[in-house]
């Protein structure tokens, strides 16, 4: 067995997995803080500055972490929401009278359009910020970090399995839908038919999820999950005083910026 002698008591590299790159090697908590700060600024600071600054930061961090191309699908996924925001606000903004033109009963306004674009920018920058976080932080790393800081093993497991439960439930729902369609369930017919088709799909998914709970609980117990005392952490996640300082500073600044903007003490475009 190659390397068995040397790795007898050493952690293999593929477990140690130290991430490389300036952005990625930040501690997960730092990345989470950055995302939270970006969210606060995007929605808290009035005007164009807030969302634009956030967008710039997001794109910069995406570039550093080399995920620029991978966040494009997330931006595209936001298109329907963006379109509806634009339409609703441009055409139906209350108390706006600076019309762009008249198309029959519809009167789009510049105020409305402006508001629409700003709202779009907020949503998109927040979404991309979340996307960058998700793409650069393996879930397990985040959970390990949180657990080290006191989240507790049950807490981290709950979060972890909740996150993992989503694709699993979707997968199961698809299997159930397949089985029922093979029995003639019409997933394309009239509304009444489709409503009638909810129980045959939801029922087995729920039943399956419930019965799985007991099995999973036993499987966890069989692995000593409820043993007392702290869990051994195999992977060391790097953190530094500088990062810790930056986290508090960032959070403080972003909250302050939002507060200032909301109270109108200082206005920015």
């Amino acid at each position, binding site marked *: 067995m190659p390397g068995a002698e040397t790795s007898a008591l050493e952690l293999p590299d593929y477990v140690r997995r130290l991430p490389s790159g300036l952005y990625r090697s930040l501690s997960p908590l730092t990345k989470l803080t950055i995302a939270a700060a970006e969210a606060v600024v995007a929605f808290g600071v009035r005007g164009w500055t807030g969302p634009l600054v956030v967008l710039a930061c997001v794109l910069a961090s995406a570039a550093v972490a080399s995920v620029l191309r991978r966040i494009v699908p997330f931006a595209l996924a936001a298109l329907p929401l963006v379109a509806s925001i634009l339409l609703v606000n441009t055409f139906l903004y209350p108390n706006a009278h600076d019309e762009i033109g008249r198309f029959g009963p519809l009167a789009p306004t510049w105020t409305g359009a402006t508001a629409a674009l700003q709202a779009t920018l907020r949503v998109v920058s927040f979404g991309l910020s979340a996307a960058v976080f998700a793409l650069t932080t393996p879930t397990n790393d985040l959970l390990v970090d949180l657990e080290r800081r006191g989240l507790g093993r049950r807490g981290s497991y709950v979060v972890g399995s909740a996150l993992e439960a989503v694709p699993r439930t979707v997968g199961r729902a698809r299997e159930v839908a397949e089985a029922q*369609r093979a029995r003639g369930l019409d997933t394309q017919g009239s509304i009444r038919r489709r409503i009638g088709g909810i129980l*045959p799909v939801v029922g087995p998914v729920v039943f399956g999820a419930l*019965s799985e709970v007991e099995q999973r609980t036993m499987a966890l117990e069989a692995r000593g999950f409820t043993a007392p005392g702290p869990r051994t952490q195999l992977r060391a996640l790097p953190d530094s005083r500088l990062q810790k300082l930056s986290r508090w500073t960032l959070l403080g600044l972003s909250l302050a910026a939002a507060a200032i903007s909301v109270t109108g003490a200082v206005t920015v475009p």
Partner: protein
Amino acid sequence: MTAPTIEFDGVSFTYPDETRALDGVTRRIEPGQTVAIVGQNGSGKSTLVKHLNGLLRPSEGRVLLDGADIAEVHVAKLAGRVGLAFQDPDRQLFAGRVSAEMAFGPRNLGMRGAELAGHVRAALEAVGLAAEAESHPYDLGYSRRKLLAIASVLAMGTPILILDEPTTGQDSRGVAAVRAVVAGAAAEGRTVIAVSHDMRFAAECFSRILVMRDGRVVLDGPPEVVFGEASWPELRATYLEPPLPAVVGARLGLGDTPTEASLVAALAPARVAPRAVTDARTPRNG
């Protein structure tokens, strides 16, 4: 009942995650044939049968029923001609009573009243669950829930019946019920197709066996041929073992004996010492 002819014409299928599950499969299944499809997990067995009721559409090639391409036909419509019972019964059970669960399929096909009740009753009897019509499906054990799932598809009266791993996890009573279902359906003239890991079930209940590997059909023929000595290299390359009777029959030079019955029959007239074949072949199945 005359079942439709099934044709796969150069069917290939690639899943969204790039796995190529089927590779140019071309086969024809005549009306009323009983076919067992065997192979390791990942060989494409389930993928192939899901093309028959439209759950999957070929990436290349065509699937034809009675010469007509079914690419544009709805799954819900194909369900009236092709019944598919899945391996995991808990995927589909949702009603509070066995009778309600059984009625779901036939009702979707437009059956009502006496016709519906008749089909349901006949199917329950075919699997031996007639006494459980008013029970709650989850009060039945796993074996009987599996039989219920099969019965619920049987009740739809489709000319083509497909069973996905019907004997896995079944005790001997359950297996006997499944065999009875296959025999009964075949007697009615239905085409019966089963995907299975169970070589004995395949050899004893089906007239034709398709062995699949890596998305292709590597062996195709009656059990005597597919489990006969000439096919063993191919079988073993698929990590499948021929049934023990076939191995014994070959060792003793008795020809192709894929089933226990055929081995016994081959031995019966030849009560003289059979010629022992002295090569080092050892049966590897437990």
